[in-house]
């Protein structure tokens, strides 16, 4: 039915598009405006967060980028990208992007740069690195990375002779979880976590805010679980979005989760609710565990957690009733109080008692495709690493600690030579690492600091050389081989030519390698060559992948779940699931998790709780024009009782001051809400940018990282516990705020 001329035009426009949409895939993903010439769409996988959903980039008839849509077959997104992925074009269109290679001309950190050519930049870096190698050895260089470019710079730095490669996603995020699960099951969780949420009947979230963290596949599966009537139990001092979807919300007193976990274990053991067959067949240390938690009654935990004993019992019984389809979710950002590995051990133990590891509705056995590496000469063997600065501590850390590398950069007694050169790829260390003063001290001790990024960030202001990377929509990157129920690979290819003078990371690394005489480690002219070689080894080709975007493979290894009663080998010391950890015992740590009381805020101070908003990824998206349109600043959540005490009006701007006297650089609006406990405040991470080159993000909201100056280091793996910071409010800006 045509109602107007305009409708008629629209109908006829669609008519032509409709003919193009015969291809069933095109039709399914809703390409209503297929271009008449040239490629209609190109595959990519998203770079806005670590979930890396595969998708298609569409162009309009004029060849302009039009939109990004999820890949139907990708288990990360099932054809549905999250708001950040859907808003990915904002990253490409952001006029504040880094545009040219820049070289520092003034004092470090003063943000005075001159534009240089790529060659000048590479020559400067190569010369500096050569000198450093001669004078101090190659081990004095380090790479901080988050995102795809790490692959190439990693190769470069390994070829150069250093193994100091680190990502803040470990010691500032999921590290304790990995160590705890490796200690218990002999296997970490990795990413995406192999949680079988879509089939679970009971999902337990401890401080994990799925839905606010937009871990796409998990959010989708949680939604499926809700549809199927799964019981959700959420433990959080904040009424999170997930809590609002939960049958049980346990508004726990912050920093007391361990007591609750031990009480749950106590109930499950003492009421004999655990999976007896599973525990007997697969685990070791049950008797020690039973004795260990004998005193951890719900009544004991009530005094600590403020969660009523009957609620603790009822939730424990629900978990056991639905087991093994019960997931006690390990969470992701778990560096809270310094005893995080032990807390995650308790989570792992709980899952073991419920028999959910390796079972449908619990944790499945993930598999990822193996992408062969192109043959290169062997890498040199470094004789020193950042670990030398740790005094023998954190040996159980299975990956490098970003804060450890930072420590090893500050001249210290343990190392005859501290780290002197950093390459920082796609991670805004100023906002990512706690204890900002320490990060800056480390930077001030560097001879060379190279920052690779797409956007000006706080960290780029400290660089000696800034290398502007093109966005993920303008480049090739390594094959994505994420672990899932079945192995998949996904291709990212440029949808458009890079804007400005930006370049892909692979090109930068290769150019640098050539300049430094390390070209043999990058034995190809273009990345396409390498990708095609790799893909052909896997039975496909670059040409096919450009067409299909994503490919699934058959599973090669174990089954998705344990076969009933079949023996299983676990990669622990004992070959069993270690309820009692021999590894921890022999390293001198508690073999079973123990509750430790953590400090609570003093009068007038509130625990700084921080987290995510579904529209943003860390500090990375704070200037994205599409996403700032949805959310352009953070607020500090304050309970109405607290607001009354302070006489706050909703939306009033305040400055935050923490227990160490650090005052936020920018004011933040108060959000008066019942969703937060009276002893805490909450703010979304990633705002309060201090770099004026971010025209939309500068000074919008406040930075939680700036307030995190107190860190409780996890003695087991060196994770930085960041939830022990307390803030108070200033209604007027006082002197003494930290400056960056």
């Amino acid at each position, binding site marked *: 039915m045509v109602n107007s001329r305009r*409708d008629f035009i629209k109908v006829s426009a669609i008519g032509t598009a409709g003919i193009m949409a015969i291809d069933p895939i095109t039709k399914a993903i*809703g390409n209503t405006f297929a271009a008449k010439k040239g490629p209609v769409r190109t595959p990519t996988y998203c770079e806005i967060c670590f979930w890396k959903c595969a998708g298609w980039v569409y162009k309009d008839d004029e060849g302009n980028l039009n*939109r990004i849509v999820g890949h139907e077959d990708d288990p990360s997104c099932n054809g549905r990208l999250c708001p950040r992925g859907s808003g990915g074009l904002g990253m490409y269109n952001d006029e504040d992007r880094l545009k040219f290679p820049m070289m520092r001309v003034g004092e470090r950190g003063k943000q005075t740069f001159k534009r240089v050519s790529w060659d000048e930049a590479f020559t400067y870096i190569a010369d500096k690195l050569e000198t450093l190698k001669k004078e101090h050895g190659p081990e004095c260089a380090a790479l901080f990375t988050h995102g795809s470019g790490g692959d190439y710079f990693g190769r470069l730095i390994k070829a150069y002779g250093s193994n100091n490669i680190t990502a803040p996603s470990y010691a500032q995020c999921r590290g304790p979880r990995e160590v705890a699960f490796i200690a218990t099951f002999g296997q970490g969780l990795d990413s995406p976590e192999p949680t079988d949420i879509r089939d679970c009947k009971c999902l337990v979230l401890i401080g994990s805010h799925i*839905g606010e963290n937009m871990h796409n596949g998990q959010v989708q599966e949680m939604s499926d679980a809700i549809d199927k009537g799964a019981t959700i139990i959420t433990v959080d001092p904040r009424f999170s979005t997930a809590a*609002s979807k939960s049958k049980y919300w346990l508004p726990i007193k912050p920093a007391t989760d361990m007591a609750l976990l031990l009480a749950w274990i106590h109930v499950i053991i003492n009421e004999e609710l655990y999976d007896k067959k599973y525990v007997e067949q697969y685990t070791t240390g049950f008797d020690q565990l039973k004795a260990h938690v004998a005193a951890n009654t719900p009544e004991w935990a009530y005094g600590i957690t403020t969660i009523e004993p009957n609620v603790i019992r009822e939730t424990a019984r629900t978990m056991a009733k639905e087991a093994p389809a019960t997931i006690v979710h390990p969470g992701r950002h778990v560096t809270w109080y310094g005893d995080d590995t032990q807390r995650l051990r308790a989570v792992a133990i709980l899952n073991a008692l419920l028999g959910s590891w390796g079972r449908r509705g619990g944790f499945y056995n993930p598999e990822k495709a193996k992408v062969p590496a192109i043959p290169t000469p062997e890498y040199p063997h470094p004789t020193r690493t950042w670990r030398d600065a740790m005094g023998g501590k954190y040996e159980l850390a299975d990956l490098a600690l970003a804060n450890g590398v930072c420590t090893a950069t500050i001249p210290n007694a343990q190392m005859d030579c501290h780290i002197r050169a950093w390459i920082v790829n796609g991670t805004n260390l100023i906002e990512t690492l706690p204890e900002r003063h320490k990060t800056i001290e480390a930077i001030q001790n560097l001879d060379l600091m190279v920052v690779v990024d797409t956007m000006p960030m706080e960290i780029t202001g400290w660089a000696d050389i800034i290398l502007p990377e093109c966005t993920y929509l303008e480049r090739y990157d390594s094959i994505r081989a994420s672990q899932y129920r079945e192995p998949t690979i996904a291709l990212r290819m440029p949808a458009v030519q890079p804007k400005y003078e930006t370049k892909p990371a692979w090109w930068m690394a290769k150019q640098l390698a050539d300049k430094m005489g390390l070209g043999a480690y990058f034995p190809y002219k273009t990345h396409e060559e390498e990708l095609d070689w790799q893909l052909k080894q896997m039975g496909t080709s670059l040409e096919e992948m450009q067409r299909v975007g994503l490919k699934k493979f058959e599973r090669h290894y174990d089954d998705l779940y344990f076969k009933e009663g079949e023996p299983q080998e676990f990669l622990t010391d004992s070959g069993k699931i270690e309820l009692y950890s021999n590894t921890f015992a022999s390293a001198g740590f508690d073999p079973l998790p123990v509750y430790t009381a953590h400090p609570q805020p003093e009068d007038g101070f509130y625990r700084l709780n921080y987290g995510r908003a579904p529209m943003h990824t860390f500090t990375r998206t704070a200037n994205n024009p599409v996403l700032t349109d*949805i959310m352009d600043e953070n607020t500090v959540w304050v309970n109405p009782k607290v607001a009354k005490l302070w006489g706050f009006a909703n939306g009033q701007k305040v400055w935050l001051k923490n227990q160490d006297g650090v005052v936020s650089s920018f004011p933040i609006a108060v959000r008066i809400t*019942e969703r937060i*406990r009276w002893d805490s405040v909450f703010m979304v991470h990633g705002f309060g940018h201090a770099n004026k080159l971010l025209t939309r993000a500068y000074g919008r909201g406040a930075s939680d990282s700036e307030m995190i100056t107190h860190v409780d280091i996890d003695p087991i793996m060196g994770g930085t516990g960041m939830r022990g910071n307390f803030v108070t409010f200033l209604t007027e800006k006082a002197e003494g705020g930290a400056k960056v």
Partner: protein
Amino acid sequence: MRYAMAIDTKKCVGCSDCVVACQAENNVPIGFCRDWVVEVTDGTYPELELENRSERCNHCENSPCVRCCPTGASHYAEGGIVLVTEDKCIGCSACITSCPYDARYVHPKGYVDKCTFCVQRLKNGLKPACVSVCPTKCMYFGDLEDPNSDVSKVLKTRKHKTLIPEAGTKPHLYFLI
């Protein structure tokens, strides 16, 4: 044919992907939106309830906007979709004033704009952009007169409400509660 949409408030997490997808699909200028997400919290800590709602034009059966439009720019299209004909709209804002849901805005070009249920996609057999992208799959769309449509099926089994039915507009945006 009677198009309608149902949004499951028990699944919606308020991520606003629907808004971003709509802006891309319909070239909505930055700073404006055809749909938006509301979060309502009720109660006192810790006795709380929260509802997330993705809202947009309700495509009312008794639309005050269509009634008050002096030029007929606002009109009913097939399936009860309420549309605005850009070059008939004089920008008098009467429809904006008449809408109890505040679902309309003035496009920078001067005419009034709003959700169209992505009529251009519907004609191609596709779901509206917001529905197709929602990560929680909390949106259901279809023909109310077709008992087998997603929306009919979910409304049959789930308790639901409409917003301000007492305004008498007969809205066709349903919220599953």
